[in-house]
Each structure stands twice: as structure tokens, then as C-alpha cells.
């Protein structure tokens, strides 16, 4: 019979080394006595452990071991060793046999540890103390059933990484200084953790969120057993809440149903309906204070031109230069549009110019900001703004430049080159043509000249329709 002594607590390392050694020696579980807690950590076996080769186990077994070593059951190592032994001796899929007594027992230990971890995540409460180094320091006292202090650490570090905090328990302690995690020895319950005003506020919240008409302390205790109460400030209120509940409900039931008071603030109720922006300027202010719905963008670029313009021209989205200046169609594509309008004999000043998407979507590459086309979903985010805008302008014709504008206006994907020309939009007479940036991208001089002539012809046709 061999005796193996592991460190107090969850000694995953020690157990792993022991298992390697035992597996190498083919020592059966019946021949091993596990014990915990002698100060000499691994006794005389320690050096030999280093020599065992890693043992190959299914992942699920490894995970189960990691949890079960945290359990406070003194038999945990013996049970785990029996599991490993059987898995290594032909029962690779042992863990699938949930009805096997050993597996069943280990599953229960596993569940208990998980529950303990979960309850510590949930029921631990920090109190804020002034930090001598400035700011606040957060301290908590908690009493877990199992050796889970290290197992809960990642959760608290991730959640409260920007805070300085200490967690004290009878099974060990943790301290986080915003950079490093330090583990410490078991702690004693601190004499007093002064409650700050937030603890008081929390108590009030807890009392107020309770519905006395549904009192059910059994259900509460099933999820939040009494043993946790001592460390949760809000539980102090429970007895009084339960005691007072029946009387509160009785009072509600006995109170004569109130005759609806005829409180009819007619003016306020009528005013409530007039919430939509009541002018184009109002709408633009609203767009400007809103968050971009595409990544990038320094500012929203509103439309420009007279209300009541006969033609509204809708582009895709502002570009680099538009984003800097806050005005539509001032970049290279805008200049091309201006030139084409001139050629077609249309006065740019008489048009209303705007974009389907009000923000410049781009990715930064070094110093350059590279234009990104908005996705169909992003275009839809902006649709209500565009439609409301056109509602103020009331043009006779809406010209969509390019596929994005056509999608925004018609609500469906449009193939510009195939469908260019007149098109009925949602509530508007419309016309589809290419976006001037398309002309800029054409490679050959000749091709470009022809496309530009077609674009000018489109603009003429549109003007004639309006």
C-alpha cells in the first residue's frame, strides 16, 4: 500500500504528478491511500513524481478532474484515480456511462463544485473603502464550501480588471491591483466592513423590487440558501419583508378599487403626438447628435439645397472630403457631378443634394482613409432619416446615383446598369443612374468619355421628367 499526500485544497498539480507516476508503475487504485495536508507537500514520493510521462486522457476526463479536485470531499483523489485507472484500462468512453455508480458519483461532485463557483460569482459582495493611494478599493468576505478560490479568480479579474480589490475567504484570498493577481493564505472574517451609501441604496432597491403578492420564501431559499445570507447586506431585510407581505396584499385587495380619476391633461396628450421633427433643420440637428450607424465618420453630413427643389439627387454616402467639410458632393465625385450638371444645362444651386447614408464609412490605412461601401443592413438603418428628409423637400423627382441610393429608395437591390432610367420609388417618382465615382474608376479614356456622355444624357432626361 502506498500513501500519497497532497497539498491542502485543490492540488491539481500534485494529483497530476501522482497520476503520471502511478500510471507508469501500473499501480491499481486498491493499492493507494490518498491523504491531504501534511506540510511536506509530496512526502518522499515527490522527486519520483517528476519522472512520470504525461498520461493521455480524453478531454472530458481532464475537465472533470480539474473541477472535482476542488471538492472538499476527502475521497475525491481516490475516486478520480479509479476513474483514470478504468479509462486507461479499456473504458475510454466511461464518462458517457452516466448510469455507472462511479461516474454518477463524480458527476455529483462536479456539479457541487460548479454550483459553489456559480454561487460565489453571484453572491459575493464588494464594499468600497477609500484607498490611501487615491480612489477606491473594494473588499469582499465570502465562505465557499469547496476549494474554489483560484477557480473563481479569472471571473473576477475579467469583470473588475479596472478596480483594485481583495477577496478574503477561509480557504485562501485573492488580491488584484489592476495589473497582477496575488493569492494569499486563508483569512479570518474581517471585524467590520463599513457599508457605504450604495449598500444602503441596494437594500432599498431589494425591498422595493419585491412583490408581496407573490411571496414564496421556499423558492427563494432553494436558490439562495441561508448559509450565504450572512455576507449579503440585502438579506437583513428578508424577515420583515416576509412578515409584512400578507397584510400589504390584504390592504391592496380590500382597498376599494379606485374610481379612475378623470385626469386628462388634454394639452399634454395632444402635444405628445407632435414628436416627429417639424422642419428639415430640426431633422438635421437630430441626425447630427446621433451616433453613426457605420464605423468611421467624424460627423454627419446633412443634405443641401432649397426645400421645394424640383429634383432631389441622392448619392451613396459622404466621402473623405465631405466628412471633413460637413457638406455633400464637394470631393472629386462631387466635382464631376457639378461638371456634368453644367454640361446638361442644370443649375446645381436649384437641386437638393443628399446621401442615402449620412456618415462616411471607412477603414484607416496609414494616413489614408479608405472608403467602404455600406452594407444593406446599414443602409436600412438610415432609411427613415432619408425618407423623412425627402418628406420635407417634396421634390417632383428623386434621382438615385448608384446602387446604394437605389436600394435605399426602393427597398430592394437594384442593378444600376440594367435598370437605369425612370423607376417608381417608395412614394416618389424616381430615376436611376450611375454614381459619378463609377466614372472616376473607369480605366480607359475613351470608355470614360462615353460613360460620361451617357451620364449627362441621363441627367437631361431626368430634368425633363421633373
Amino acid at each position: 500500500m502506498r500513501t500519497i499526500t497532497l497539498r491542502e485544497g485543490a492540488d491539481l498539480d500534485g494529483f497530476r504528478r501522482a497520476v503520471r507516476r502511478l500510471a507508469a508503475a501500473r499501480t491499481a487504485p486498491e493499492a493507494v491511500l490518498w491523504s491531504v495536508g501534511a506540510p511536506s507537500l509530496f512526502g518522499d514520493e515527490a522527486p519520483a513524481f517528476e519522472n512520470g510521462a504525461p498520461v493521455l486522457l480524453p478531454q472530458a476526463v481532464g475537465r472533470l478532474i480539474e473541477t472535482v479536485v476542488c471538492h472538499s470531499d476527502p475521497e475525491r483523489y481516490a475516486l478520480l484515480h479509479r476513474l483514470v485507472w478504468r479509462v486507461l484500462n479499456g473504458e475510454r468512453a466511461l464518462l458517457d456511462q452516466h448510469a455507472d455508480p462511479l461516474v454518477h458519483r463524480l458527476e455529483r461532485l462536479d456539479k457541487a463544485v460548479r454550483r459553489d463557483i456559480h454561487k460565489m460569482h453571484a453572491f459575493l459582495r464588494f464594499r468600497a473603502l477609500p484607498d490611501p493611494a487615491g480612489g477606491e478599493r473594494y473588499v469582499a468576505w465570502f465562505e465557499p464550501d469547496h476549494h474554489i478560490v483560484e477557480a473563481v479568480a479569472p471571473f473576477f479579474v475579467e469583470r473588475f480588471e479596472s478596480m483594485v480589490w481583495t477577496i478574503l475567504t477561509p480557504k485562501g484570498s485573492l488580491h488584484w491591483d489592476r495589473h497582477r493577481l496575488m493569492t494569499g493564505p486563508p483569512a479570518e472574517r474581517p471585524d467590520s466592513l463599513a457599508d457605504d451609501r450604495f449598500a444602503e441604496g441596494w437594500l432599498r432597491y431589494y425591498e422595493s423590487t419585491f412583490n408581496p403578492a407573490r411571496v414564496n420564501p421556499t423558492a427563494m431559499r432553494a436558490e439562495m440558501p441561508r448559509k450565504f445570507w450572512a455576507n449579503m447586506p440585502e438579506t437583513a431585510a428578508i424577515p420583515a419583508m416576509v412578515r409584512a407581505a400578507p397584510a400589504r396584499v390584504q390592504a391592496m385587495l380590500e382597498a376599494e378599487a379606485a374610481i379612475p380619476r378623470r385626469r386628462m391633461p388634454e394639452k399634454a396628450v395632444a402635444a405628445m403626438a407632435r414628436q416627429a421633427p417639424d422642419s428639415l433643420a430640426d431633422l438635421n440637428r437630430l441626425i447630427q447628435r446621433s451616433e453613426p450607424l457605420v464605423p468611421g465618420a467624424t460627423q454627419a453630413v446633412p443634405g443641401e439645397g432649397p426645400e421645394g427643389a424640383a429634383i432631389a439627387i441622392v448619392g451613396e454616402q459622404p466621402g473623405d472630403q465631405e466628412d471633413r467639410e460637413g457638406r455633400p458632393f464637394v470631393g472629386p465625385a462631387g466635382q464631376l457631378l457639378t461638371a456634368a450638371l453644367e454640361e446638361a444645362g442644370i443649375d446645381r444651386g436649384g437641386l437638393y443634394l443628399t446621401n442615402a447614408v449620412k456618415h462616411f464609412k471607412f477603414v484607416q490605412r496609414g494616413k489614408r482613409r479608405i472608403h467602404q461601401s455600406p452594407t444593406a443592413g446599414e443602409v436600412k438603418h438610415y432609411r427613415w432619416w432619408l425618407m423623412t428628409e425627402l418628406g420635407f423637400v417634396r421634390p417632383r423627382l428623386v434621382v438615385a446615383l448608384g446602387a446604394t441610393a437605389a436600394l435605399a429608395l426602393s427597398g430592394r437591390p437594384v442593378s444600376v446598369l440594367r435598370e437605369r432610367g425612370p423607376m417608381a420609388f417608395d412614394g416618389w417618382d424616381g430615376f436611376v443612374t450611375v454614381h459619378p465615382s463609377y466614372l472616376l474608376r473607369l480605366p480607359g479614356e475613351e470608355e470614360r468619355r462615353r460613360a460620361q456622355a451617357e451620364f449627362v444624357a441621363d441627367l437631361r432626361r431626368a430634368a425633363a421628367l421633373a
Partner: protein
Amino acid sequence: MDDALIEKLGILADAAKYDASCASSGAKPRSGGKEGLGSTTGAGICHAYTPDGRCVSLLKILLTNHCLFDCVYCINRRSSNVRRARFTVAEVVELTLGFYKRNCIEGLFLSSGIIRSPDHTMEQMMLVARTLRRDHGFAGYIHLKTIPEASPWLIEQAGLWADRLSINLELPTDHSLKAFAPEKNGGTIKAVMGQVNERIVEAKEERRRFSPAGQSTQLIVGADDATDRSVLETSGTLYQRYGLRRVYYSAFSPIPEASSVLPVKPPPLQRENRLYQADWLLRYYGFTVEEIASGGEGGMLDLGIDPKLAWALKNRERFPVDVNRADREMLLRVPGLGARAVDKILSARRHTRLRMEDLGRLSNGLRRARPFLIAADYHPAGGLTDRLDLRQRLVTPSSQLSLF
């Protein structure tokens, strides 16, 4: 935090407690890092339980309980005499961060009465969420209860910051909505649900963030005369058509300052419980509304037994089921066997022929399942499923859920 703020917190938490939803689940795992605050874990955590057995996970408050609407079932309607209060945006932010840092909550559930206009109210709520996320790097959970009468652009903005948006339908039929909530409109509410659903689906496809934990709604049960069947039909439609994550059922609860239009006596809480069980069967167990309703009488669920057992008792010819042979679908229909137990059975029976002793280790509901199944060493004696007193034998007397 001063006395005045604590006082307001009392009023505005009290006014928010009738909303049943509390879940903080469904968000993708993320964290605020060194500069921000908080994390979401996916599953959500209940940080406390109140003596009504409900979980405290989010700070559930109203921005204000002033309201211009007059929904009779609601304690905040304009004609009620309750004390009123109103938070500023900054106050809600302060409370959320303060409680979060003490590990009291997973995040915020913010709702509101309607002040000035639906747009104004919704914008204030959206600003709370935006301030938390943008100015404080808050990575905890945010659930915003959308005001359906607000302009669509506010929904588009709210979805950028919230993990979940909800729009309460409150009453299962248009008819009761008209009678009890004169300013509301079923069509408007469903249109917004449609808008939210579309955006969520698009954002998911395009890998953008928009209300990543989906949308939910609440139905009040027992304020009007709708049957359980019609409530479940409404839920079924909501799940299918608007991709809702959850429908919450809230048994109409007596409120102080009740309107005389309402029933004086609340429905038994058990009704709400049965609806949740039925909803579960609808979503995870492959039952149809028709099948569930057939377990009860006149469109109402049997309050004494759970809907799965009720269905089984009316369909006895389909039992007993052989646990060593039956397919997953049929095993799921055995009363007492949950989805988890069924999956364990399926995996365990590949290695061995299951006996009753094995089943006892795989399921906690064996006492109830016993008459409905066959194991290697067990066959229900004398056609137990034909016995008339079967229902009696399986009902666990449970009175603790109803106070009345």
C-alpha cells in the same frame, strides 16, 4: 448617493417590478478591460433572490413613473395616485456603475413611463445606454424596454448600445389592448417588433452588433378574459414571425390604486407557471399549441398538473415508451424526463441496456416517469397507464405558489 436619490430609487424600482423579465443571458462574452468595467458571460447570473422567489439579476428601474398614457392594468397610468419620481440620465448611470462595482448586478434593465412624448422618453433611455457604453466603457448587460410609439430612428440607435430590446405587447389580443390601453395599438407594436427583428437578422449576417441578445416581450395574464390557448397562440406567432427570444408571462398582480375596470381577484399564480411550462414545450419539446391545449379543458390548461403530464394522460395509448428503443422525440414526451435526462439516456444506452436503477441515476423525475416507460427490468404492472386514478397518484399537492 444621497437620501433623495435613495428615495427615488425606492419609488422607481417599486414601479418597475411588474415587468417579469430579468434574464441577462444571450450576450456574446466580452469584457471592459483595464479602462472599462464589467463583462458578460453568456449565461447571465442571478445575484440575489427576493422573498417572492424571483431572481435579481439586473437593476430593474424606470427612468420615470410619470406617464401620459392610461393603461388600466398599470400602476403608473396617468390617472393613478401613486407617488411620482424621475431620474436624470446621470443618476441612472451612477446607480448602475455603483451597484455593478459591488457585484450586486449583471447590468441594467431600463424602462419608463412616457413623459413629454414617446420620442423624448426613448431618447433619454437611449442616452443612458450610450453614456454607460461610450463614456464609461461599461461592458455589462443592458436591456432597454423600447417604447413602440417612438420614431423608428430611435430603435436603430438603441440597438447599438443594448444587448436586448424588448417591446411589451402586454395583452394577447388586439381587442383587449383597445379596451385596456387606449393609447396603444397592436399594429404599431408588431410593426416595431418586425423592424427590430429585421435589423437583428441583418446585423447577425453582416457580423455587426445590434441588440445581440435578441428581443423579448411580456404578456399579462388574467387581466382580460383571453384563454391560455389564445395566449399560447399569440406566443407561437411571436416566436415564428418576429424571432423573439422569450415571451414572459406575468400573472396580473393586484396593484395599489387599482382601476375599477380590472378584475378584483388576481388569477392563481399557478396559471403563469403552467404557461411557462407550456411555452417551454412549445420551444424545446416539439409540441404544438393544439396538443398542449388538448391537455386541458375549454382552452385553459389544467392547473393541477403540468401540461406535459396532462397531454400524456389524454394520450395514454402512446405509452409506455421503451427507454432502450424510443427515439428522442418520443422520449421527450415522457412526463418527468427533461431534455437533459433524455440526452443522457441516449448516450448511456449505447453502452448498456438501461434498468430502473440506471434511470434513477440519469433522471430526477423517475417517480413521475415510471408509469409511462419500459426499462430492461421493468414494465408498468397491469397497464398502469389505464388506471383511472393515475392523475391523482401523480399530482404533488402544491399550494405554496398561491397565496389565495
